[in-house]
């Protein structure tokens, strides 16, 4: 997949926001801890979005999730025969 330049930039900016907030939390500003958690989530989303086209990522995620969930049925032990 070709990286998404717009989201690479957004992720870099967001990493800066997260670093600054993390510093404030480290200095004892507990009120910022909740805000930091939201901004870290935003960063994770931007980093995922930077990996490539949304449509291709959706395709991969759909296939992977489908395989994982159906795979659970195969790995479960069969019920005992009566």
């Amino acid at each position, binding site marked *: 997949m070709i990286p998404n330049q717009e*989201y690479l930039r957004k992720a870099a900016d967001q990493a800066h926001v997260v670093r600054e907030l993390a510093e404030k939390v480290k200095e004892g500003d507990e009120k910022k801890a*909740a805000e930091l*958690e*939201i*901004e*870290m*989530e*935003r*960063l*994770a*989303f931007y*980093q*995922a*979005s930077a990996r490539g*086209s*949304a*449509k*291709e*990522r*959706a*395709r*991969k*995620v*759909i*296939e*992977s*999730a*489908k395989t*994982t*969930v*159906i795979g*659970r*049925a195969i790995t*479960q032990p069969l019920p005992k025969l009566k």
Partner: protein
Amino acid sequence: MLIIREQQLEKFIAADDRELLSTVAQAVIRANPQRVSAIRTERLTAMIQLGIETARAAGMKKAVDIGIFVALMFEIGPHFYRHPRVAEVLQDQNYSMTERLTQLPERVSDEVWDEIVHAYEAEFWFPEKRRAAA
């Protein structure tokens, strides 16, 4: 020949809500481990629970459909299903819900996927903070 009905298959996948949570968590993590690696376990569990509730409210019943739906919420955006073009595909009664979900990449254009990503709201995943702000 052993015949397994759909209902039995569902029980193999997830017999109860606790197993469903574990199955969906596995689906989300395997779909993109980096996406969730920085999220602490309690928060991730709460996010997946919220995703399951959202998927059910949107009409997902089978574990496989809930797993795909929640994985898309994480990867593309928690409100992806609300986009009119996506909603149209998800309402197409000619196909099963699993087929509709797997058809999404073919039936929804790049522009629409990009629009959904742009509309992302991190706050969705933190309902307790949304309530406090209201």
